[in-house]
């Protein structure tokens, strides 16, 4: 089983799970999904994207035609199969905790 990954890595990978996105959209997606709880900052985001790329969990791809943002050509990122596995493993791990909470009747079934 994969080692646990940091919470913000999980969120970034989760953002990319259904579609390729550029940095700004990852930021907004994470913010929305976490109800504003997880704020990514530019330096933090790009530093971690670089790190994820080094670990082979994401790749940078050619900017799709027509995807313009703010006048420039933003860089897009795509999740790799390894990234997908790491993200899923983390989700399973978290689901295990949720299941445990449910068994202890902390949550409604």
């Amino acid at each position, binding site marked *: 089983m994969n080692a646990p990954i940091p919470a913000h890595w999980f969120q970034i990978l989760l953002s990319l799970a259904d579609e390729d996105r550029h940095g*700004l959209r990852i930021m*907004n997606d994470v913010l929305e999904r976490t109800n504003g709880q997880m*704020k990514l900052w530019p*330096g*933090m985001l*790009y*530093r971690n994207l670089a790190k994820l790329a080094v670990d082979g969990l994401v790749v940078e791809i050619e900017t799709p035609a027509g995807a313009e943002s703010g006048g*420039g050509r933003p*860089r897009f990122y795509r999740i790799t199969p390894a990234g997908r596995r790491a993200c899923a493993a983390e989700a399973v791990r978290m689901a295990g905790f949720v299941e445990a909470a449910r068994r202890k009747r902390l949550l409604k079934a």
Partner: protein
Amino acid sequence: MPRPWWVSAIARLYPREYRERLGDDLVDAMLACVARERRGGVWPLLTGVRLLVDALTTFLPGTVRSAPSTGDSLMQSLIADLRHAIRMLRRAPLFSVLIVATLALAIGANTAIFSVVDAVLLRSLPYAQPERLVTIYEGIGSTMTAGFSAPDLMAFRDRVRSYDGLAAFRNAEFELSGVDQPERIHVARISASLMDVLGVAPALGRAFTNAEDTGGQLVAILSNGFWQRKFGADPSIVGRSVSLDRRSYTVVGVMPAGFRFPSPGPQLNNVPADVYVPISFTRIELNGFGMMYNNSVIGRLHAGVTAEHADAEARTIATRIFDEVYPAGLRENGFPQLIATVTRMQEDIVGNVRRLLVVLLAAVGVLLLIACADIACLMLTRAAARAREMAIRTALGAGRAPVMRLVLVETGLLAALGGAAGLGLAWTLQRLFLTSISESVPRAEAATLDGRVVVFTALASIGAALVCGLLPAFESSRRQSSGMLKESGRASTASARERRIFGVLVATQFACAVVLLASGALLVRSFARLMATDPGFRGDRVIAASTSLPATGYPTAASIRSFYATLLERLGAVPGVTAAGAATDLPLTVRERRAFTVEHPPAGVDGSGTIANDWVTGHYFEALGARIIRGRALAPSDSQTSEAVVVINETLARQYFHGDEPVNRRVAWGGARNHGPWMRVVGVIGDIKQAGLAKPTEPQTWQPWAQVPDAAVANNPTGIFRSLQLVVRSSVPPTSLVPAIRAEVRRLDPALPITGVQTLEEVVGASAASQRFNATLLGAFAGVALLLAALGIGGVLAISVSRRTQEIGIRLALGARAGDVLGMVVRQGMTLVLGGLAIGLPAAYASTRVLRSLLFDVTAHDPVSFVAATAVLCAVALAACAAPALRASRVDPITALRND
């Protein structure tokens, strides 16, 4: 989306690879963050700080995995803490204002003093490679330090090897005419090499050439201030002429702004000049062996040569000059051995004020400490009052660190506000401070509130925040949540631990306060002693003014004598004038020191030595109100044709005649074997201070100015006999005579300026100015320290009483009388005060030693000052204890008990 400049600025902080690879993505993301945070109600400033931190953490190695989440939460909590702190400050505005004002006062005082210390002691002189500049003094015998005489300088320059260059300068006063109102201005006669030695150059025109120096050419360089003041900064001034001492000098240059030379500070030639002229030694000066030791000499050492090496060389060479160059007559007549010493120029200029400035800086530092202790007490009290809030935070899972952080953020915010206010206050304090010290402290005018000073203020504020905040932070975080939550809503009884902490803080304050108070008392007492010294004359209703007759208008002794005789006669006839006289120097500022010998000294007395002398004319002693002890004063009948006479002071009579009758004995200038003509002593005058109130009275003679030889009156190179100080005693307020004195001078010579118009009381005041300044400043610091300490103990007792209301109620209910309760509270307070004294008095005893050189006629351990300081402190402490004690004694037992 508009792009604020600071976003672009922060984007530029990212490593190059980021910027190149990401391009607009980075800025877009930053702008999105700004918009996101603004929607969340966050100040753009805070967002900016967050973005800045975010950009900078990009550089941190190894933080990639863990830093983002923790860094983010740390930042978020800091922001939350800050918001919380602002809310707390708003909720207790009086509390906040009190703390900020206290800190502003203490930090402001520190900043103001530091800015002067920085300018004077820490920054190097404004010359090229200032560490290579030295000042060289001559010494005659082992005791007297003086400047160089011209022949000694020439001989010295031919023999030394340590220097790239040597230069001499000396102050002079010239009459400036051809302008709207003739005036006397400060001039420096300088060697042509001076600019090179200092490594400065005129802003306009050029420096002097060697030919101009040796040839005695009438050329001048103007100081920048003088050029602006008198010539409206006219750039075409170079090549035009100015009239100095009624001779026409060609202006060859203008110095840059900020060039202030000679610098105040050294013992001679310390008056910044308006105009520079070549030093051009005269023939008389160049042959003046054994006299006129009045030229300051500076040198630029060869690279790598130390001042110590140069000093050793100078001492050797001085001995050689004495042996090889001095006339045999001087050496055989017992003229003392020559010495030459080398001092670093910076040390020569600021050495005298280092002690004072360090004392002042230490004093304001102690003041800040006292203020911090006050604030720590207040914060602790509030921390105790908020114990429940803290307990809830802890119970909800906040660790010890976040609670500490919260308190530190609060004190940090207070300190930042205090520091900012202090910086503003420092600006005002610095102006006040500078106007009172710029005369006596060299280079103080360079003090500004620049980056270095702002950094100092920031550090002082951070230090203050830590000192004020650490203890309360620690205390808040160590409270056990369980105990606190169970307590009722009311503040609890102070624990023994808390009382101990308060006790230590208050005792520390009083220990610090007593050190400042004892120092202030010493200086105040020293100043009082100084003002109580008898200067030897009655300064009330006496006005002084000076005139100097330029050689061009007054070439002969006869013309000079006639001018002053007529002037004094006419001044004597002015209504309200009771006596008018004149002297070469006023009391307290006598410059002349001469070798002197007594005919047939009493057995066992060395009849020769160095004494002070003044030449006087008219009704000088009457005008001064001097006491005539024996014989008579000098009189107008003492003329060139009558017997040469002098009067002496009591000190001279005592030292050189012991118990003998000095009147009718004879004395002469010079040594025992080779002296001038005998002069008869006709009277003894009560001692008059020569060199300042604080200096011991020296033996002194007064000689009739009328008996100075004609040649000396007309041709003395220093012009001492051409410039007389007029002294006029009146039966009316002395300043009302000024127009009459001006009118009489103008009647005789419309072009002649009058300077130095002052009452003799002002002369006395000027002599005590530095002591007055020291006493005022340290006295004020001591007062503020006392006030802060009183606030501290008053506050702590008030809190203690309010916490113990219930306990006091029980005591009263059980039969204690109001007086017992009063005594109990006062005892509690005074125990702390005495504890402070037990530490503070020995500390004061140890530290006042550094004041020794600033004191007059008072020892550094003067018991009166220490007792007075202790008494004042105890009295103020008692008064501060009284209010809470009275409140305690009036507690109504029923109310107190019912309130539980």
